[in-house]
């Protein structure tokens, strides 16, 4: 029933010249998404991937278990000296992420262009 979570990484450079690892998600983000969310993040090289940008453009459904996985990733990133940002969330999930406090630790942007311009 739940649509499988797909994830892949794209390495970009921001206009300011910073290396940015973009994690692009597709499908649902729920309790079954551990490998796609945490596994994909954990495969990033910690020495070079200092800025992690999460792309939710192709994600339609995120539940509280999925949000918990994002928070687990943010905890690991904070402990590794990485910064996490995100873009592409719907207005509703932007509200939900704000309600649970994620925006205190991860900047949210409407689009990839706006995110990269700010990094």
């Amino acid at each position: 029933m739940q649509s499988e979570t797909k994830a892949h990484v794209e390495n970009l450079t921001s206009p300011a010249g910073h290396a940015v690892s973009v994690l692009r998600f597709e499908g649902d983000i729920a309790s079954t998404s551990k490998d796609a969310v945490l596994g994909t993040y954990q495969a990033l090289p910690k020495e070079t991937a200092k800025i992690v940008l999460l792309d939710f453009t192709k994600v339609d459904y995120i539940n509280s278990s999925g949000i918990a996985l994002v928070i687990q990733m943010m905890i690991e990133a904070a402990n590794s000296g990485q910064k996490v940002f995100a873009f592409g969330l719907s207005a509703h999930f932007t509200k939900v992420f704000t309600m649970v406090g994620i925006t205190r630790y991860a900047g949210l942007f409407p689009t990839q262009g706006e995110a990269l311009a700010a990094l």
Partner: protein
Amino acid sequence: MSEFKTANVEVRMPSRMGFEKVAMSTASSVAKLMGFRDERIEDLKTAVAEACINAIEHGNRLNEKLSVGVVLSASADSLEVKVIDDGKGLKNPPGKVIKPDIDRKMHGEEDPRGMGMFLMQALVDEAEWVAGSEGKSSYVRLVIRLDKDAE
């Protein structure tokens, strides 16, 4: 839209993760027929999903032989959704659910999970947890009201 007549819709689904989306889409369809704004429908969908996930995971403990019931009761000015499971329900149903503390979560002092009840209560007008008699048929009752000026 003309005055909405009362209507009841019931769904039964297996206690299997993912089936909460059936309840979400049913609630969304009923709310749309009643004239709720898209923003409110998204709030309702998330609250219903979280209620179903709790019923599947905690109420019925992922036992697929048990089903989760979703009863939607639409009136002229509100939509009530009851999500019923075969669990014992909460011993001490909360009046007000405490907001998750992101600082404590980030510092490993609080489980990253445990946001479902908060989201339910924050996204709808009423959220009530009712323990069933004889240790089963517990339910969560969610209500959203039509704001006739805004909808």
